[in-house]
């Protein structure tokens, strides 16, 4: 019985992230539009786009290989798995121990790996630019993530997100290293999701674009799947930040149904707050030159290292 319940909870989370991710995108766009004195598209517009794309035929370049067609699904799968392993509304779900923080980073890395390959498959100059830059950012963002993982897991004494969340919720005292970790993770999140100031998700014809350059040749269902994956990625980072640094109202996996309900409510609330903050941040800053981005990410890496050193030292005091 409990087994079935756990299974259901896990499935619910998988469904939840899948459903909510485009909504988060839509909400962010909406808020941005409002801040820019526009009415903006409806909240569910991203979903409409996805469905429209799914209904369209697929136009493949002549040189596209099997890898090009398989990549979207692999990217989607890795991101979805990662997203569904982050505690969103409840900790310690059935499979939450399958992959810890480091494994999550690695899963996202796998997604990036195949995305970059897909960008190079057609052999266009834009794809190459995108992949090269994505690789560059990734090779700085991933270590930063791992350093942040070090910080939190050293503080919480575990790399298991559920444990971390539980620890943070129970006896949490504000440490400077935690602050570093938070800032660093936000920077990484911005860079990884290609938001302003690193990249502009809304443009297609800008030589500084990264993510959009790689998926330039995609169309139809492939494009839809990739878009969904990137939405999932944004959601993942948001819920990661939420569950590590603001683990309020998380239900326990053995909690009752209404706990779960509260958990979901809290979670949605957090998402909207995050989306709002993101939008305001994006409208208030300008995009930076591509070759400033390494410094931007390097800052995150440095924060991570500093935090880790602090933890190492404070540990022995």
């Amino acid at each position, binding site marked *: 019985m409990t087994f079935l319940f756990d299974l259901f909870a896990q499935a619910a989370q998988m469904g939840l992230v899948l459903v909510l991710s485009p909504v988060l995108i839509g909400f962010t766009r909406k808020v941005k539009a409002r801040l820019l004195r526009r009415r903006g598209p409806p909240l569910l517009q991203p979903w409409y786009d996805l469905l429209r794309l799914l209904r369209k035929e697929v136009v493949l370049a002549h040189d596209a290989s099997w890898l090009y067609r398989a990549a979207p*699904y692999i990217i989607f*799968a890795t991101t979805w798995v990662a997203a569904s392993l982050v505690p969103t509304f409840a900790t310690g779900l059935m499979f939450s121990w399958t992959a810890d923080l480091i494994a999550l980073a690695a899963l996202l890395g796998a997604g990036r790996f195949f995305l970059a390959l897909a960008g190079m498959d057609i052999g266009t100059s834009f794809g190459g630019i995108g992949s090269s830059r994505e690789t560059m950012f990734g090779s700085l963002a991933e270590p930063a993530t791992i350093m942040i993982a070090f910080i939190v897991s050293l503080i919480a004494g575990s790399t298991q997100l559920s444990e971390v969340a539980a620890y943070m919720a129970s006896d949490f005292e504000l440490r400077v290293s935690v602050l570093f970790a938070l800032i660093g993770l936000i920077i990484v999140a911005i860079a990884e999701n290609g938001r302003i100031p690193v990249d502009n998700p809304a443009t297609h014809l800008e030589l500084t674009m990264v993510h959009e350059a790689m998926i330039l040749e995609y169309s139809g269902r492939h494009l839809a*799947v990739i878009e969904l994956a990137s939405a999932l990625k944004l959601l993942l980072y948001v819920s990661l930040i939420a569950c590590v640094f603001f683990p309020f109202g998380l239900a326990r996996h053995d909690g009752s149904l209404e706990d779960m309900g509260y958990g979901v409510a809290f979670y949605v609330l957090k998402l909207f707050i995050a989306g709002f903050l993101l939008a305001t941040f994006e409208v208030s800053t300008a995009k930076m030159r591509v070759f400033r981005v390494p410094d931007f990410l390097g800052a995150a890496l440095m924060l991570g290292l500093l935090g880790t050193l602090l933890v190492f030292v404070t540990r022995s005091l």
Partner: protein
Amino acid sequence: MPLDVALLCVGALLAVGAASIYWRENEDVSRRVYSLTGGLCAALFLSAVVPRGAHALSTTLPLGLPWLGMHFRLDALSAFFLAVINLAGGAASAYAIGYGAHEKSPMRILPFFPAFIAGMNAVVLADDAFAFLVSWEFMSLTSWALVISHHDHAENRAAAYIYLLMASFGTLCLLMAFAVLGGATGAYDFTTIREVPKDAWKSGLVLALTILGAGSKAGLVPLHIWLPLAHPAAPSHVSALMSGVMTKVAIYGFIRVSFDLLGAPAFWWSLHPLVFGAASALIGVLFATVQSDLKKLLAYSTIENVGIIFIALGLALAFKADGQALPAALAFTAALFHVFNHSLFKSVLFFGAGAVLGATGEKNIEKLGGLIRSMPRTAFVFLGGCVAIAALPPLNGFVSEWLVFQAILLSPSLPQWVLKLTTPAVGVALALSAALGAGAYVRAFGVVFLGRPRSDAARQARETDQWSLGAMSGLLLLCLLAGVLPSFMIDTISPAAAEYVGGRMPAQSDIAWLSIAPVAQSRSSYNGLLVFGFILFSALVAMQTIKTLWPRPVRRAPPWDCGYADPNPAAQYTASSFAQPVRRALGAIAFSVRERLDMPAPGETRAAHFEVDIGDRFISYLYEPLSKAVWFCVGRLNVVAFLAIQEYLGLVFAALVFLLLIVAL
């Protein structure tokens, strides 16, 4: 019994090498030699994995130093390395049955290939200093012969020269180390050496010499310069063995001395492996990122992985010195696990590189591209190898790096401050090198196999033969298994860990769902099987649902590329341009870059010209001064060759007067 079988097989390998000279006339000699070698490797592998019982087997042959004999011993550690060597060795032989077919002068390879494998096996079996060094140097010598097998290229000869010089430097260092350990009395067998008590400066000296000796063979920075020259020079199945296995044998040597012979470690022993390992990991991967020669790229990434292994070993030493058995076991296990993994996927990658080389005759990736269409199977296997070595789940490379990270996460408990400050830095280096490694392999695979062919050679490529494919896919399958079922590997390694760091990780195979938890489920755990399952599941679900709900046709069309689509393949992103951001941002850590841009003024019709040359600082600041110094002395001393007789007499006279003065006073 297994030990005797193993020694017998080693002898048989040597015999096969010798026999190949007699068979040189008949045409199927290479097939015969390679299949025999493969069979013997299989036998050796079996003798390594059959249960031996708890205690180590040992035997003595009446060879070598007469009063000593040649001692051989098979314990958990040597058995593990024996298995690693012969797994890769067998695969290489199988691969070579196909690959070696189009070798233009096979007799320069056939006698030495089995001997090379025999030498590596003998190293891990040896149980006295003499046997160890004999097999060690024999390994170097035979591999040298293989490196110079394509001797008509000048750069191969130069590579062979530097290789053997560095190798014998390493051997001499090890020789001195063993001299300190047992030379005074001539008691060279390891059992005696273990018992002899060592004082601090002695073990420090031994450790330094061992780092130099084993490090120069493993390609540890700054002793790495031979590696990217020698490994590409050899034929691909040999490069695979040299990169995937021989470096591991060197690591075995380091483990044998520092974990076994030297006895209880002091904490500062861990500093050298940690620091040099981190340096190797970073510098190796950065060089790999900018290489445009496929095999050189792989060789540099070998340096990176060796660095990772040394980091893990350093942690193990630190924990062992502090008496923390469990973390030590974790780090040690991580090291051995990575040894195993690297031997697998580096072999796959070198095999793939060899297949590409055979199909196109082109090592320069700037001239390749689009091979995924002409050689799809090779492309698939190579992609698998890339994913594995890029440490991406669910393949095996990730598991071992994950274990190393877990070990680093335990290191705050180490009391020494210097270690507290070192390990986080090492952690950053490790994380950076992992991420950069992924990037490097995106570049490698993307430029070689994806996109459009950049040369006719690439355009006319054909799929490689079945033997090669079989060997590659077999190893790749092992990579997948080790990735999704890591618990079994860990439990296989743990006896060795128990023997050498005095502790073992909790038994993994009985944890639910076959996941691994180094310390405790609550602290950290990973389940490759489920991750693999989930990824597969969700990908298939997505595909199926979409296919069923919205079945839409696929139309082929020319690429859009924002309307700038250029039919000329040269318009693609090149390898060097792909590497440019990393080179700009991080290159300064590793190498000295000089970019030369010749941009014609507006209106000029000549083509713009841009070139980058990348220099190894260690060569320009360490090795060149050394050779300069030698040549300076040579030039100075050379005048002595041209004196007149009476000047020579003057020398004698001076010596006579000098000595007379000495005895007189």
